[in-house]
């Protein structure tokens, strides 16, 4: 039989591909000699035209169109059913009347299927407890029983009225009144908690506003019902916890979505109250983005779980419709956001401990007192963002590709599967509030976060974003402030410091307008601008800004705050470079003292940075090495080995090891740092040059001159003077290069480099800088190599004078003196040599990298002694 069908199907398919006019002839030809087949195909051909959407809508949709309403019973128990008023996943709600006393009641009939017997038992026994819930803002439970069909039901107080979100909209309440309406709700939930009942499913449709317009009375319904449903599902789905999802995802707490997070307790209801508060204020549920709706529609549970557990809700102020004065709005923005977001914290421990605490904070807010809630600190947000972006890296790449060239072009280039993802990405870009996407986008393309991707593309994205911020954000100052901040950091990563500074400055202006000092927003903005200004070279202004920032952080009175610690460490670095070293050290010690109070400090690269900086100030190399190593390890664990900070730490540790003369280890670390920087940064980045130069210091010490030359030449090559790579640095590289060329006996080349370096030193005024000492020594070295010993002498004398002026008694000066003594010995002026060497007899050759200088000193002294002995011997 199927052979016949297959053949018919094949001819039918072929015929349908032809123009309508040719089909009949085609069928006739193909079915030649088989009339039955021909008749079948012709008939089917007829029925296959104009099929429209026949069967294209799946039966599942057909069924969902009208999930059949069960017939409404005339009565349930002693109650006469009036109307069907609701339906949920676990049952149907009827409005009914009771005889005595005469009153309306709501009867919830539970599907029998979902109600295993012992869950019902527990429910019925809990009913006793619920009956004890005697609170004006909680719907009473009057009675319970079983229908004739054996379905359990519950008789509850019927509260006529709209759900709370509809009520506040219809009544047009200002936000203060909306908050006041929530106070009794908190009180009701608190009351239930004291009786041991957790609601588990607080959402707008479970809070009905009764009473009259003069005295609205919010009433919480359905206490404990969610528990029953939970029990029912739990029993039916043992071992399927990952598929068990109850309640309404928009309002579901992370611990309900993912039980591994923690037990369901009173703080679950605090989350629910937060979601309620959010929607009452803004008209939308906290998690309401395109991605969320997509996951909901597609029944993608793992995606829903992920969103519930990871996606930070947008600050409610961003979604609030404007009313009231600018001043009141900005106050709302800050403090109310904190309150709401504290309720909605992913980790139960970060929420209010009870509804009562929430109510108190709301009351404080209404009374214009400072609230207890605090914003999530920057480090917290940063780590969250990094963690999320790392996971979603592919998505990010697509996202900014979309922003850059638009969907059509990309879609043409991609396979259909990718195209679908692109369209999704575009939806996300369009649907999510512009601010969030732009900010996260900008943050996600920061070079230090999106490693190794092409920075040219990032620059374009950033410039585009900056342009959009100029054009589209002037009406949204706080959004603009956040975007400016992200842009500032990103430009800073790209070392476009002028642009970075401009963006940070704009942010500071905005937050100064929006907030009254002291305020953490202002403190952070001051800090970031300070850092940017410092990079630009204006250290005085930088220190002023950073000090103002730190003072504000202190004034905000969060003595154990990690943000404060961070501000201290960074000010310390600027102070150290341009000011008072002991103040810097004190700041770092203070910062460290804050960090050690936090058990999770090892997860924070900021702590690593503090240690790293502190290490640089240690006199004891053992202590310093330990600090460097700890910093490096923390970064590697917290950020991954190819993160900019980890590489920096490796670099610092490598340089320290060099100073300790641990050349092999230093070589290994710095080689790795160079490799990673080459991978992470564009080829012309000065950090690569810096890494190459650092490694060259080691290889030169190891007397591997070929490699040293290669590294320095690479550092020099391809370096157009960029914003950061300035003449001074080029001069230093050229000096080093000359030194190695001398070792390689390429004296003409060396001379060329020395002349070029000389010119740069003189032009920049760096001929009074320690690195110029090196240049002078290299000059002398060059003269010595040419055999022009007398010429070397005055040059070395200048080097000694300069080194002495900069760092009297330093090991650098001593090295110059040894150079001089060596030449003096060569030209036979032993007495002068001995005199010179005697002047540095007290020198301590620290750190150990100067061991070679010490050895040269010993050799020079030995030579002098030998010659003296010979002379004395000759005399005798």
């Amino acid at each position: 039989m199927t052979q016949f069908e297959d053949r018919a199907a094949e001819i039918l398919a072929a015929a349908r591909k032809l123009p309508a006019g040719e089909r009949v002839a085609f069928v006739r030809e193909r079915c030649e000699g088989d009339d039955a087949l021909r008749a079948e195909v012709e008939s089917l051909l007829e029925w296959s035209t104009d099929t429209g959407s026949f069967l294209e809508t799946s039966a599942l949709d057909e069924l969902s169109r009208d999930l059949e309403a069960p017939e409404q019973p005339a009565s349930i128990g002693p109650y006469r059913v009036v109307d069907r008023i609701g339906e949920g996943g676990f049952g149907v709600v009827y409005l009914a009347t009771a005889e005595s006393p005469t009153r309306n009641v709501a009867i919830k009939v539970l599907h029998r299927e979902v109600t295993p017997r012992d869950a019902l038992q527990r429910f019925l026994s809990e009913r006793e407890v619920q009956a004890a819930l005697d609170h004006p803002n909680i719907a009473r439970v009057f009675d319970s029983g079983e229908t004739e069909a054996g379905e359990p039901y519950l008789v509850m107080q019927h509260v006529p009225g709209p759900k709370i979100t509809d009520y506040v909209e219809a009544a047009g309440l200002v936000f203060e009144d909306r908050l006041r309406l929530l106070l009794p709700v908190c009180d009701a939930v608190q009351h239930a908690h004291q009786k041991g009942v957790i609601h588990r499913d607080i959402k707008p449709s479970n809070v009905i506003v009764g009473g009259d317009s003069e005295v609205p009375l919010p009433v919480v319904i359905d206490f404990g019902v969610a528990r029953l449903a939970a029990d029912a599902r739990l029993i039916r789905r043992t071992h399927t916890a990952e598929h068990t999802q109850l309640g309404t995802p928009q309002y579901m707490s992370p611990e309900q979505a993912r039980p591994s997070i923690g037990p369901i307790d009173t703080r679950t209801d605090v989350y629910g109250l937060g979601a309620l508060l959010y929607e009452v204020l803004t008209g939308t549920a906290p998690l309401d983005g395109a991605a969320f709706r997509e996951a909901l529609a597609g029944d993608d549970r793992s995606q829903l779980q992920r969103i519930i557990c990871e996606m930070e809700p947008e600050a409610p102020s961003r979604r609030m419709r404007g009313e009231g004065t600018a001043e009141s709005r900005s106050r709302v923005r800050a403090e109310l956001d904190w309150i709401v977001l504290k309720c909605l914290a992913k980790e139960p421990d970060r929420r209010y401990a009870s509804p009562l605490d929430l109510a108190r904070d709301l009351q404080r807010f209404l009374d214009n007192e400072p609230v207890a809630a605090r914003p999530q600190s920057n480090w917290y947000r940063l780590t969250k963002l990094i963690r999320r972006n790392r996971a979603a890296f592919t998505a990010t790449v697509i996202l900014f590709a979309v922003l850059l060239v638009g969907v059509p072009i990309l879609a043409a280039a991609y396979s259909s599967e990718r195209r679908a993802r692109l369209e999704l990405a575009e939806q996300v870009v369009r649907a999510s509030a512009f601010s969030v996407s732009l900010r996260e986008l900008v943050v996600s393309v920061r070079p230090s976060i999106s490693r190794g991707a092409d920075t040219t593309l990032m620059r374009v994205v950033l410039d585009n974003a900056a342009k959009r911020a100029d054009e589209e954000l002037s009406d949204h100052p706080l959004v603009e402030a956040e975007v400016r901040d992200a842009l500032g950091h990103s430009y800073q990563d790209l070392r476009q410091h002028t642009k970075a500074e401009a963006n940070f400055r704009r942010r500071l202006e905005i937050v100064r307008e929006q907030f009254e000092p002291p305020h953490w927003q202002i403190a952070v903005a001051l800090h970031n601008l300070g850092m940017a200004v410092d990079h630009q070279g204006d250290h005085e202004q930088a220190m002023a800004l950073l000090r103002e920032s730190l003072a504000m952080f202190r004034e905000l009175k969060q003595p154990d705050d990690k943000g404060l610690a961070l501000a201290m460490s960074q000010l310390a670095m600027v102070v150290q470079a341009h000011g008072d070293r002991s103040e810097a050290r004190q700041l770092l010690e203070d910062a460290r003292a804050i960090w050690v109070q936090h058990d999770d400090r090892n997860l924070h690269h900021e702590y690593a940075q503090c240690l790293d900086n502190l290490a640089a100030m240690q006199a004891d190399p053992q202590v310093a090495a330990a600090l460097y190593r700890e910093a490096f390890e923390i970064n590697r664990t917290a950020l991954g080995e190819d993160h900019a900070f980890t590489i920096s730490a490796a670099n610092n540790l490598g340089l320290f090891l060099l100073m300790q003369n641990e050349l092999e280890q230093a070589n290994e670390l710095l080689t790795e740092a160079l490799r990673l920087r080459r991978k992470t940064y564009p080829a012309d980045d000065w950090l690569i040059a810096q890494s190459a130069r650092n490694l060259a210091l080691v290889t030169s010490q190891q007397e591997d001159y070929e490699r040293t030359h290669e590294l320095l030449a690479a550092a020099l090559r391809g370096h157009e003077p960029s914003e950061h790579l300035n003449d001074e640095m080029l001069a230093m590289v050229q000096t080093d290069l000359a030194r190695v060329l001398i070792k390689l006996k390429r004296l003409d080349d060396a001379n060329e480099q020395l002349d070029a370096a000389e010119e740069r030193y003189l032009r920049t005024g760096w001929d009074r800088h320690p690195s110029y000492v090196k240049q002078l020594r290299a000059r002398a070295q060059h003269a010595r190599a040419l055999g022009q010993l007398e010429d070397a002498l005055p040059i070395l004398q200048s080097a000694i004078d300069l080194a002495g002026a900069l760092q009297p008694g330093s090991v650098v000066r001593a090295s110059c003196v040894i150079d001089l003594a060596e030449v003096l010995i060569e030209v036979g002026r032993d007495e002068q040599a001995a005199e010179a060497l005697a002047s540095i007899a007290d020198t301590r050759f620290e750190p150990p990298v100067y061991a070679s200088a010490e050895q040269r000193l010993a050799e020079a002294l030995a030579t002098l002694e030998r010659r003296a002995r010979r002379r004395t011997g000759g005399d005798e």
Partner: protein
Amino acid sequence: MNPDHQLIAAARNGDEVAAGRLHKWVDDAIRPMVRGRTRHEKATAAYQTTELIDRAFLEMLRNPAVTFEDRQHVVRLAGRIVQNELINAARKRRTAKRGRGWVRAPMPDVSSTEGLAPEQLLALSEALESLENHDPDRMNIVRLRYLLGMTNAEAADLLGIPESTAHDRWEYARAWLRREMNK
């Protein structure tokens, strides 16, 4: 993992652990089929899928004749459940609209299933029965695409046939069913 007879028997005897494992197995077998169907954007999709799984699971427990050796069995069962639901829905809709004395009316032509009238649904259901007896291969594709809402690509993948073949079979079956419904 296929559920063995012992597991099914234990579940039927009220062993909750066994029932849980069986439920998970049904869930695993059915959910991927109906998840992420881009055409289903209604929020009810979540409910439908869960509903379908629960019904398949209950059917498994209830009906001793049902055996489960592989996914194809589950697919067949899920399709059967949806089909039964369609009939139920049609009957209820009919009762609700016209009362019990309803007589089958002459069939209008069907060019769309968007909101099929109860009589059309019943006719479709009968047509599906004959297709099942007459031509199981064609019925397979209808089951996956219409009853379970999969795309052509997904259905072809599950059946292990080329997409073009799946498409040809689908077009053939649609014409065949339309003709059958109007006989």
